């Protein structure tokens, strides 16, 4: 006869044993061989390093952003593996579909946290923010595919590229200092979410630093389909330069609505506001061709930068169906940083998570083959902003990527002074 007391004792024993079992599950931590310390995701016998990818592989964000970035990351490391790996270690991936949902991101992170050394790609501001505290608790470095400036405050998140906030500041540096327009009448139209708020923060800093004549700050909801009211406000304000922190579909409707209302300012697009697909909209093509885009890095196919030729070869070899795409390029460029961290940690003989973090902090500068300008890293939030420069592009349907540079790569006064 099984008594209640016996059952209770069994449960207590099981509960007491759980931490031991959990320890066994993560038993790859802390092993070492030949002077190389290894953490989770490192198999010293098979000489493999497992990295995580948390990206939308389904849902609306998957096709245009998630899959191309993940392909870029994988293409980079497939090339590394085919050329001997990192000191003989091959890189492999555990990929999880987050569907761009913060809840799923947390769930998927928890599924793979004991299997991977670091996250080589986590797409999206909100999903990445959802795992930042978990990653910090696990001492897990996360390479985040987002340009949100708020990421710079998180010590285990790796930012690649110039944040949205600094893009806006550089755009108005171009207007005031490069074009010599004094006190221009300016406005911003932004979507009412984290992305939009980052653009708005940059705009307000630019207004202060460049003495812009700020005439309107107009917001819209992500689900809005009609922008007549917002555009009528911009028109009534008399803004000559309007910055757009938007996404491509809203960009199209806003510019078309403005044209309909007889309003034709200089539109300046935040990098995600533009998509080459917009040039396929016949009615929009002539309207958007006056617009500028603030971004950075080499245009697709620009083999004058050393990394482009290799990237194009790897794309043709590993992902032959991949179309020219800035997001693929971003994923590929992002991986230069991951590679540099792994390489440095390997040289230090410490492939644990703490070893990776120390390697990351000591990197100082990473060359990304010219695909993006060299990134600089340090230990303070200001030093974790890897680049502060931008290029102003003009929309141009005749170019492979739909844009041509108007300026060289530069860092404006406001962007160089901005604190995080």
């Amino acid at each position, binding site marked *: 006869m099984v008594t209640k007391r016996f059952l209770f004792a069994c449960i207590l024993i099981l509960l007491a044993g759980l931490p031991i079992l959990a320890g066994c599950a993560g038993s790859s931590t802390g092993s070492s061989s030949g002077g190389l310390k290894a953490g989770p995701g490192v198999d010293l016998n098979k000489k493999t390093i497992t990295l995580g990818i948390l990206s939308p592989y*389904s*849902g*609306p*964000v*998957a*096709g*245009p952003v998630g899959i191309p970035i993940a392909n870029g990351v994988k293409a980079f490391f497939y090339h590394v593996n085919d050329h001997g790996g990192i000191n003989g270690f091959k890189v492999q991936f555990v990929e999880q579909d987050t569907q761009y949902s913060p809840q799923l991101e947390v769930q998927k992170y928890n599924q793979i946290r004991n299997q991977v050394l670091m996250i080589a790609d986590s797409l999206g501001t909100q999903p990445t923010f959802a795992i930042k505290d978990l990653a910090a608790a696990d001492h897990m470095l996360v390479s985040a595919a987002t340009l949100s400036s708020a990421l710079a405050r998180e010590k285990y998140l790796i930012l690649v590229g110039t944040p949205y906030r600094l893009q806006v500041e550089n755009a108005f540096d171009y207007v005031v200092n490069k074009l010599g327009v004094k006190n221009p009448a300016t406005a911003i139209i932004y979507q*009412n979410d984290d992305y939009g708020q980052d653009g708005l923060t940059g705009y307000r800093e630019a207004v202060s630093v460049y003495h812009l004549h700020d005439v*309107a*700050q*107009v*917001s*819209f*909801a992500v*689900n*809005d*389909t*009609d922008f*007549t*009211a*917002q555009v*009528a*406000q911009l028109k*009534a304000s008399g803004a000559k330069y309007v910055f757009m922190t938007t996404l*491509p*579909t809203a960009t*199209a*409707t806003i510019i*078309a*609505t403005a*044209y*309909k*209302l*007889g309003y034709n300012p200089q539109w300046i697009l935040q990098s995600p506001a533009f*998509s080459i*697909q*917009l040039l*396929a*909209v*016949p*009615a*929009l093509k002539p*309207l958007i061709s006056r617009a500028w885009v603030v971004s950075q890095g080499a245009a697709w196919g620009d083999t004058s930068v050393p990394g482009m030729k290799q990237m194009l070869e790897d794309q043709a070899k590993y992902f032959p169906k991949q179309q020219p795409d800035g997001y693929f390029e971003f994923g590929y460029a992002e991986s230069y940083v991951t590679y540099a961290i792994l390489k440095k940690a390997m040289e230090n003989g410490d492939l644990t998570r703490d070893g990776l973090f120390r390697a990351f902090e000591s990197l100082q500068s990473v060359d990304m083959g010219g695909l993006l300008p060299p990134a600089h890293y340090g230990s303070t939030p200001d030093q974790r902003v890897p680049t502060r420069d931008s290029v102003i592009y003009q929309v141009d349907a005749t170019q492979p990527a739909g844009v041509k540079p108007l300026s060289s790569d530069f860092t404006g006064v406001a962007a160089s002074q901005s604190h995080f």
Partner: protein
Amino acid sequence: MAYFLQLVFAGVAQGCIYALIGLGFSIIFKASQVINFAQGELLLVGTYVVASAVLNWHLPFLLALPLGLLVTILIGLLFERLVLRRMIGRPPFTVLMITIGLDIILRTLVVVGWGSRTIPAATPFTVTSGFNVAGVHLGSSDLWTIGVTIVLCAALYYFFRRTRYGLAMRATALDQEAALAMGIDVRTVYALAWGLAAAITTLGGVLLAIDSLAIDPNFGNAALVAFPAIILGGLDSVSGAVVGGVIIGLTSVLTAGYESRLPAVVGTGLHEVTPYLIMILILLIRPYGLFGSRKVERV
């Protein structure tokens, strides 16, 4: 003044779009007491088909539009025939969950078939077509939207009042068992409701896409904005959907046009919540909406 009138015109046009989408919800609810959560994705599929017909298959817009309507009508009819007909007599909650399933399936099909990227929408107008009156631009697409809504409302009024099937639909909505006893083919009524709702919603989507110029798989979310309109007008009222749509469209656009003049703490994003505030206010006074039927039960 021109600024105000421009906003009013845009608000009415936007309201007409909500009205058309809302009509789809109302017709199905009126006939079968089901809230169809796949309405937005029916709109999405129809708009994508019309866009593809014009841009990829090079059909004239006036041929592409009926093709888009036909596809969504077929989806509506098939769904009714293969799934909903088996659910007659089941709890409304079960049917509602099935429509959510259809919503997810249709969106996935669009992503698989067309990809997730922004694609051009089909439009028969140039961006600037229309004319200016006293500083107000009356765009062709907006004028067409308002015109189509008026004509459609008149046609629906005639259909529900004067035609055999319209009367059958009203009778079924009132009392399904009594309608059956009177020899009304309830199954045909349901099929008709789904086909009609799919067509009207698609029409709303195509008109909305004309103004947007570009569409993506999130385009179906427009139906969510139409939802307060039908609740406000009364879920089972066709005229309520139209009046609710125009009220929501007007208040949303007018608030967006003037919110920047308010202190930032109140004004920022105010137009996003105004439709819901109005909906709550009206429901507090009239729990069945402006034109909804009040249920009377004998106790």
